[in-house]
Structures are given as C-alpha cells and as structure tokens.
C-alpha cells in the first residue's frame, strides 16, 4: 500500500509540476512575444 501511495504521489507531483512548468514557460514566452511584436508593429 505504501509503495502505491509513493508511486502515485511521485507521478502526480512530477506530472503536474512539469505540466505546470511547461504551461508557465509557454505563458511567459507568449507574453514576451506579444510585447515585442506590439512594439515592433507600432
């Protein structure tokens, strides 16, 4: 039972952590891109 809980926790923390990190980096990249593009287009 402990092994199952450990495995589940490991995967959930790693999985959600990397998914959120990936989406967070994407958000940052989109924000920077939008700011730069809007300045260039002005």
């Amino acid at each position, binding site marked *: 039972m402990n092994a199952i809980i450990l495995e589940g926790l490991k*995967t959930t923390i790693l999985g959600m952590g990397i998914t959120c990190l990936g989406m967070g980096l994407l958000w940052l990249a989109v924000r920077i891109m939008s700011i730069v593009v809007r300045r260039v287009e002005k």
Partner: protein
Amino acid sequence: MTASLVALLKSTGLSAMTLGNGVMLVIACVLIYLAIARKYEPLLLLPIGFGMLLANLPLCDLMAPPTEGSTGGLVWWLYQGVKYGIFPPLIFLGIGAMTDFGPLLANPKTIFLGAAAQFGIFATFFGALFLGFNSPQAASIGIIGGADGPTAIYLTAKLAPELLGAVAIAAYSYMALVPLIQPPIMKLLTTRKERAVVMEQLREVSRMERIIFPIISTLVISLLVPPSAPLIGMLMFGNLCRECGVVDRLSKTAQHELINIITIFLGISVGATASADKFLQAGTLQIIFLGLLSFCIGTAAGVLFGKLMCYLTGGKVNPLIGSAGVSAVPMAARVSQIVGQQANPQNFLLMHAMGPNVAGVIGSAIAAGVLLSLYGS
C-alpha cells in the same frame, strides 16, 4: 456429399463463433448505433465500432499478423500506424491546421486553466493504481481525463496496448457526453453570481503573433518535454501552415483530406484491437469508471482554478471557462457558453472559453509526454 457439406459448414465463421464474439458484435452494433442515431462523436465512434465488428468476425483474421504462409490481415497493417505512433500526430497536424489560437494569445493567462484541468489525469492515475493496474496501465487510463482522443491513443499504444480498445472507447464516449457530465459539476462549484460574470472583449491578435506562436510553442515544450515533440510538433506545424498564409494547399489538405483519411485508418484499427479476449474483462468496466472519474476531476480542477483566477483578478474571469481546460475542443467551450448564458443571457463566453480549451490540448500533450518519460521503455 454429407462430408462435403460438413467441411463447408466448418469453413464458415458461424461454426467458429463464440459467446465472446457474439457479445462483442452486439457492443460494436451499439457503438455504431450511438454514432449514427445519437451522433456521439460519429467521426471516430463509427470507424471504431466497425473496426470492432470486423475484428470479432471469426476466421476472418483481419488482425492476424503476417506469417510465412500469409501476408497478414488488412487491419493489422493499418494498426502499425497506431503501434508506431504515426497516426495520432498526423491527426494533430490536421487539428493544428483547424485551430485558432487567437483567444489564447489575446488572453494568455487562460493557459493556466489548461494546465489545472490536467489534474484529473494524475488523480485518476492514483485511483487506477489502487484498483490494481500497473503504472503504465494506470497512466493510460488517467490520460482519458485529458479529453483528447489522439493523445490517449498515442500514449496507450506505447504504454499499455492491451488496453487500447477500452481506453479509446471510453475517451471518445465521454467526449461525446461532455454536455451531460460537465454542467452539474460546474454549477455545484460556482455561485450564480460567479457564473454571471461578464468578461471583457478580447483584443485583436496580429498576424505576426499568430505566426510566431507555433514556433515558440514547439521550441519551449519540446525542449522541456521531448516525448511530447511528435504531438506538439505536428499540432504546431499544422497551425503554422494555417496562419502563415503562403501554403494554403498544405493547410487545406491537413484540415480535410489528410485528417479524414487518418481518422478512418485510426478508428478502424483502434476498434479492431477490442477483441473479445482483451475487452470482455472486469478491467474494462474499471477503465470506463475511472475514465468518468478522470473527466469529472479535470472539470472540477479547471473550475476551481477559474474561481481562484476570478478572485485574484477582482472578478474579471468567469470561473466557468475553467471547465473548458479539459480539451474536448470545441464541445467543452460550448458547454461553458451554455451554462454561462443560463446564469446571464447577456453573457458570451464562447471565445473566452476557447483559450483554455486549446490550452488543454497543449496541456494534455505535455502530460502525455511526462508519462511517457516516466513509464515509456
């Protein structure tokens, strides 16, 4: 004469028919009925149902691998496109060519709603482990909550091919049932005042932003989670073809002919993996239950994160758009619109919900990449 007649009868499929085959043929006919009469995800449930029907016809050997004496069954050859992970990314190419990322670019913070809704995948992974599935199988069951058929098929074909039929059928069935599954959860977790929040109109997104987005998305996500690259790469290439405006022929082919052809091959070959010996097990019922759980938890996580964003922005975000983070494009966004309009007839949430909706496609591909990194061979 009698001996010839007996030999002839023995060569027919009827003589080799088992109870399991009979039950599977009935299930196949039910799926075909749901696709045609009820229009439940017909583009995929129809080929899946027919593939299931073909695979369970005795002595037809459509899923038989090649041997020294035979060239192998037709569907077995089609299945190689699923087994080697070719068809799902090609479907993503078509989806990318059809997707407008404008609402996401106009309101980038909705990206986080697409991430939050992936929680259902990992919570269900936990549940599947408790029910006795091994880790790769649990990952394949959890991904049903990503509400993204090609991603679920891609991951399951690599991690637990023995579950492919059950996972694909559960994923597409629940995607068709999104209008029934999501509204009670959305209403339960939000107040009428929150559901009535009117969001500001989205800004115009320039052509240059639309062209750069698929390139930076591919770079950011593929560098962080390389196993996601086949799905994200094809999705974004399809989108680049759409947005750049110089390869209309490629874009139209990806949106129509290519995705249609691959959908036929994918559906028939996935359905054909649901043979009686693999499908008629207690595990299939558990997968169907866990798939529903995954959808519900993903929806709840998206709405709860939407509530948090509503609070943090001082009431500028309607929490209902969070439920669209589970993917199921565009059905989940339409559900947000319908539930929002029930609370406030002046509310138009569709375009706002499309942001988390398309972010959910990216989020589920990242989650699949993480699971592949952890449990892929």
